[in-house]
């Protein structure tokens, strides 16, 4: 388990250094995107339209923050991760097209995303679900917001962050996925549980 502190934009070479169980902190720019923003971003790409923000080398954050407007400035009040599996249907194309290096979320992602991360050089950083103030305190500034018409949870929030983490590297760019390992372990444990409770599979 090694601790890394990376600044955005992150290079493919740096991201390939990370292995599962490493801990990562990010300084620089991270951009939130949930279901609707992923869908729209991929539509833009298909139509050859530019995204309002260049995501190359940045981190995409599965998050719908609580924000408040103080004067004409937005402030991130609470900003923990949302469940990433919902983005599994978009993420491989998203990584391929926009060259993001880190996907931040909770709950892990599946084989499609794991394969894309290995192929194009990206990792999944698990941030503790619900730890919204821990996240908000690392957000130094809301640099901008795009696609507010999707509603505040679904908009693209562009955050300037300092030592954003801890992110548990749960999927690396070498095909390893902690969540898939845990799932295998759970399969084994299921047998023991059934035995203990006197149940039949």
């Amino acid at each position, binding site marked *: *388990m090694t601790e890394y502190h990376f600044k955005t934009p992150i290079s493919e070479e740096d991201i390939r250094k990370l292995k599962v*169980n490493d*801990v990562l902190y990010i300084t620089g720019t991270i951009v939130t995107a949930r279901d*609707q923003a992923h869908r729209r971003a991929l539509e833009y790409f298909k139509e050859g339209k530019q995204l309002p923000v260049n995501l190359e080398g940045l981190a995409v954050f599965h*998050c*719908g*923050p*609580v924000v*408040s407007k103080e004067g004409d400035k937005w402030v991130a*009040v*609470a*900003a*923990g991760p*949302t*469940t990433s*599996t919902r983005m599994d249907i978009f993420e491989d194309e998203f990584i391929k097209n926009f060259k993001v290096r880190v996907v931040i979320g*909770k*709950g*892990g992602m599946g084989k499609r995303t794991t394969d894309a991360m290995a192929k194009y050089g990206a990792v999944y950083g*698990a941030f*503790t*679900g*619900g*730890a*919204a*103030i*821990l*996240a*908000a*305190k690392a957000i130094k500034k809301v640099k901008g917001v795009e696609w507010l018409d999707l*509603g*505040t*949870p679904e908009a693209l929030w562009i955050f300037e962050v300092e030592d954003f983490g*801890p992110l*548990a590297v*749960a999927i690396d760019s070498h095909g390893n996925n*902690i*969540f898939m*390992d*845990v*799932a295998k*372990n*759970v399969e084994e*444990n*299921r047998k*023991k*549980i*059934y035995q*203990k*409770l*006197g*149940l039949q599979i």
Partner: protein
Amino acid sequence: MEIANVVENVAFNLIKQAVIYLPEDVKQALKKAYAEETSAAGKTQLKAILDNIELAEKYKAPICQDTGTIIFYANAGADVKHLDKIENALINATRKATKEVPLRPNAVDPFTQKNSGDNTGRFIPYINWDIVPGDTLELTVMTKGGGSENVCTTGMLVPGEGINGLKKFVIEAVIKAGSQPCPPTILGVAMGGGSDIAIKLAKKALLKPLNEPNPNPEIAKLEKELYEAANMTGIGPMGLGGKTTVLGVHVEYAFRHPASFPAAVAFNCWAARRATARIHADGTVEYVTHKGRV
């Protein structure tokens, strides 16, 4: 003061208390889990959770950015006056809390996908009414996170399998949910009634304090058995592996139709937010779960 104003004020305070301060029983259970967790990854997650709880209290900010769907449980004394004014007061309190706490706007029209922006809409906030004797109105708010809601489940089991069928149903629900509901979770389990009744009872069971097992020893035994079994799965904190998958299990039941065995599992994330207050006939207010947090 008119009852509508009192209720609006109290409901606003309850929402604010619930989203910022976890109930004491949940905090204690998380501290115990941190002390006992043996997986390094799991321990890191529990540490982040405990740090976050402290920060939320310090900055008086919502524990989690998903401030949930606002659900009220109203135990209305039959002699409480102006009960017809309460629904509107709860809606106003929700709007005010969304703006002032603030809360994330979480009410979306399923037809147009438009977010109302103030956490209200058709049937939202939802109010569960119970009529009880007396002249006191007891109000509870549950701000229910979406991640844990997405894995709640109902099933019509085979009556012939009895309680064993229920045990299997619960274990499979926990395994299927995996990392998604932000473990360590709290489980509300219910059987009987009907499909709607089972899930309603299961969800309401989430309001019970963790340190209070069911007074019926047979049910308490089942709760303990399910708790131990869920923690044997190895899913662990945030699904990264470990021995803390659930913090507690509450079981509820209703009688069932001979041909049906409805069952339900309701999940609550570790940020199990709830707050209760009693409004008495003389207008005095007693905060039950969050004394001194107004």
